[in-house]
């Protein structure tokens, strides 16, 4: 019954219990809730599955280890847990894999053949339709500057423009313009790769609109 109740509780309530009672089950519920979406965000942001796993693991371990002392996430001081977690992931990625490699944030370092090979290997190991889609999507995202990738990755995860602005530390108007440029570029890339044809028929109406928009641009 307690585990069932845990699933109904907010992240903030569960993490308060982790901090006060070192409750493993409460943590497991939070982890299960966010592991996939958070990883997907980092995969879109980094366009490299190994980096996404590395940063995701670091974030979860940082959160866990902090329960022994002062928790890094404190509901009374911070915003919602999701905003906190994605900010932590975004900052770790920028600090460790963008700034440290001394690359211009507009010329992201993941364009290296090594990163592309890593992703291809990763997808060969999990060769399903879903993973092939993931590979196409990641390849397209890799063509974007990291600022645009950051915005579009958070948007794909369901964050509002206001929350994205908070996480990325930029004005809301900048979020809008970055997203507009990113989507325009992705449309071109998806049309070139034929990825638009792989969208299931359930998306018919919006897909037709998207295809028409792309056709209009390429005509």
């Amino acid at each position: 019954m307690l585990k069932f109740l845990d699933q109904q509780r907010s992240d903030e309530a569960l993490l308060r219990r982790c901090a006060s009672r070192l409750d493993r089950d409460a943590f497991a519920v939070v982890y299960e809730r966010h592991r996939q979406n958070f990883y997907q965000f980092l995969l879109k942001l980094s366009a490299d599955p190994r980096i996404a796993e590395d940063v995701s693991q670091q974030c979860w371990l940082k959160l866990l280890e902090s329960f022994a002392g002062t928790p890094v996430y404190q509901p009374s001081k911070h915003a919602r847990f999701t905003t906190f977690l994605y900010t932590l992931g975004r900052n770790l990625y920028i600090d460790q894999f963008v700034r440290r490699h001394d690359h211009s944030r507009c010329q992201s370092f993941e364009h290296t053949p090594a990163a592309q090979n890593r992703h291809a290997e990763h997808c060969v190991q999990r060769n399903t339709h879903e993973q092939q889609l993931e590979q196409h999507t990641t390849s397209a995202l890799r063509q974007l500057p990291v600022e645009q990738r950051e915005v579009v990755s958070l948007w794909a995860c369901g964050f509002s423009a206001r929350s994205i602005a908070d996480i990325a530390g930029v004005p809301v108007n900048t979020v809008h313009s970055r997203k507009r440029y990113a989507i325009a570029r992705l449309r071109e890339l998806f049309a070139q790769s034929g990825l638009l044809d792989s969208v299931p028929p359930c998306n018919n109406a919006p897909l037709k609109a998207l295809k028409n928009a792309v056709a209009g641009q390429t005509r």
Partner: protein
Amino acid sequence: MIDFDRNSDDAAMHRLLNQAGTGPSSAHDDAVLGAADRLLRSSPEARPRRWHVPAALAASLIIAVSVGLPNLQHVEQASPASAVRAAQAETAPPSGERLAALPEQLRWPAAADATGYRVVLRDATADVVWTSTVLVEPQLRLDGDAAAAVAGLETCIWSVEVVGPAEPQELGPYWFHLAHR
């Protein structure tokens, strides 16, 4: 400026980006959950933070000195089971109890720094059926709307939000079954 969330093309793109939805590898899960196993405890064993132990020892020492050291020989060692029983005794009805009729009131342990309490009543699926206003005393008289909300339930789960402390606190969840149903 385009609408951030409602543009139909954007909606299609949103779906497209979200189709590729694999999670992290099992090695990632093993690393995180393995660390959780090392650093945390499962619910039944979930323990207070480590600093609670020295704090409890210091508090015990102060009480022992104030009561008088000669009385120490009469002090019985409190077992964890007796501590649980004591905590349950402060909660009425005791959590997990099967009752023949609706209890007249719910009672819970007073919390330090509390300026009030808000009681949340839920059904067996944890959906909220009733929420109290802020109460000053650590008890709720189960009548009126509250009784009506609970009367139709076989199992009532209740918890208490403590109002006042800087860090939000929640007591419970506690629950009782109504046996006559």
